[in-house]
């Protein structure tokens, strides 16, 4: 059961139970919706970006513990960061989640999000963890279409 414990670590369960920045944002100037068409998980990411810096970021939606914790950790990590850093972080997180070559090095560059590295042993759950990231990426790019994990 070591793998299951890797997946459902205390920090993840805590973020699932009390997600950070879990609210709509009235003054947001970036917003995107994301869907996982396979399971119906849905997330909306709001951001306030000023002079290339993410001043505030929040999310709402419904999903499993992994998707909620991932979104919560993401908002905590991105708040105050420059927009450009978000994309670099997304790439490293994605590499870590999918376990592709370079995943180990990538996981060292993602700060607290490293807690999600256990997800790579559960291929069916990678999309749960990456949904919020696809969505924030779409929000920052100002894409009109809802983001999906496909």
């Amino acid at each position: 059961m070591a793998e299951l414990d890797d997946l459902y670590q205390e920090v993840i369960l805590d973020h699932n139970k009390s997600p950070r920045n879990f609210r709509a944002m009235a003054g947001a100037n970036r917003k995107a919706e994301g869907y996982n068409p396979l399971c119906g998980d849905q997330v909306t990411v709001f951001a306030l970006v000023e002079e290339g810096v993410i001043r505030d970021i929040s999310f709402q939606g419904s999903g499993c513990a992994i998707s909620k914790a991932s979104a919560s950790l993401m908002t905590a990590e991105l708040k105050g960061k420059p927009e450009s850093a978000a994309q670099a972080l997304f790439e490293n997180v994605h590499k870590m989640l999918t376990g592709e070559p370079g995943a180990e090095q990538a996981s060292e560059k993602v700060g607290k999000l490293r807690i999600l590295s256990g997800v790579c042993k559960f291929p069916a759950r990678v999309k749960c963890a990456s949904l919020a990231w696809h969505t924030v990426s779409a929000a920052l790019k100002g894409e009109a279409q809802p983001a999906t994990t496909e």
Partner: protein
Amino acid sequence: MKASSQKKEPAALSEFDVRRIREDFPILKEKVHGKPLVYFDNGATSQKPRAVIDAVARYYRAENSNIHRGVHRLSEQATAAYEGARGKVRQFINARADQEIIFVRGTTEAINLVAQSYGRTFLKGGDEIIISAMEHHSNIVPWQILCEQVGAKLRVAPINHDGEIVLEEYSRLLSDKTKFVSITHVSNALGTIVPVKEIIALAHARGVPVLIDGAQAVQHLKVDVQELGCDFYAFSGHKMFAPTGVGVLYGRAELLDKMPPYQGGGDMISLVTFEKTHYNVLPYKFEAGTPHISGGIGLGAAIDYLSALDWRQVSAHERRLLEYATDVLSDIDGLRIIGTAKQKAGVLSFVFDHVHAHDVGTILDQEGVAVRAGHHCAMPVMQRFGVPATTRASFALYNTLEEVDVLVRALGRVLKVFG
């Protein structure tokens, strides 16, 4: 939680020898994460008995060739086996004639065939199509596409909080504008057995044809299309112990004759010139291209397998499984069953107040228990019950009460992780 099944139901399976049945399904001996496989995802696809696996392998080893055209020995054998399977399907659902059995890829293709061939020919702007609030996406989207093409309107018969169709509301939707009704026989997300006979009779009283989506029904109920009186009946092979990629559209010959082909190509023609093509007779008019020959043969073998069983015993066993599972799962704190119709078959959908279905699914998998977690391709059903997703345990004749106990213990682990 209640005591184990042995205490609760002594000699519960004395009539039906489930141990012997399990011997017929090689995959049930597999282990998952070091634990014996408990396969409760039969609503998605069933496992295959050795008889089906062997029939498919035998075809590829000894009979492989194309059908309906070769003058050589192998082609004759393959044609006989494939057409023999059509005859078995006819008997299985008690259709009048083999020509009313169209082989397709599955339920989805069968419904699309009717929507495009019948629907585009006979429906026009302002006409209405009735479906129910608990349809699989496969019985929603083909009709939406048709509505866009011809300007028809989709009407949805509501369901009550138990997941049952409200017949009075359905009859109120029927009007002179209604030109087609398409309804599921057994709900894939809720397990409800729909009173399709009444639904068909009400539609026929107004001369409206009816398609029944039997994807979740044929493996649990004895289906007799003449007794039901339906105009079309659609089902998939792979949910009834046959291979994937083969399914059946039953249609009344009188309607099929009036319908244009769905796809063009080989096998569906009798004469082709550049000026005019003459279509083949039923059922071949609807079977363009080389079909899934091994799949059809496998489906025939699955029907032989099912026909050798005593359906009365099979139904009693499945009913006991569902009742027992419903009983013991209802006792789990924070667990709510979605779909509480009086008449149900094979499906137990549930949610926890504080644990998402995906997390339930992952933890159960670690215990060797395979379930479906998600919206079951029935998003409107999830919306109706105000849940994003459910965990669905769906049963087949080879499942046991002891396996339900494994599920209950595994759910205990879910609650431990999520406190």
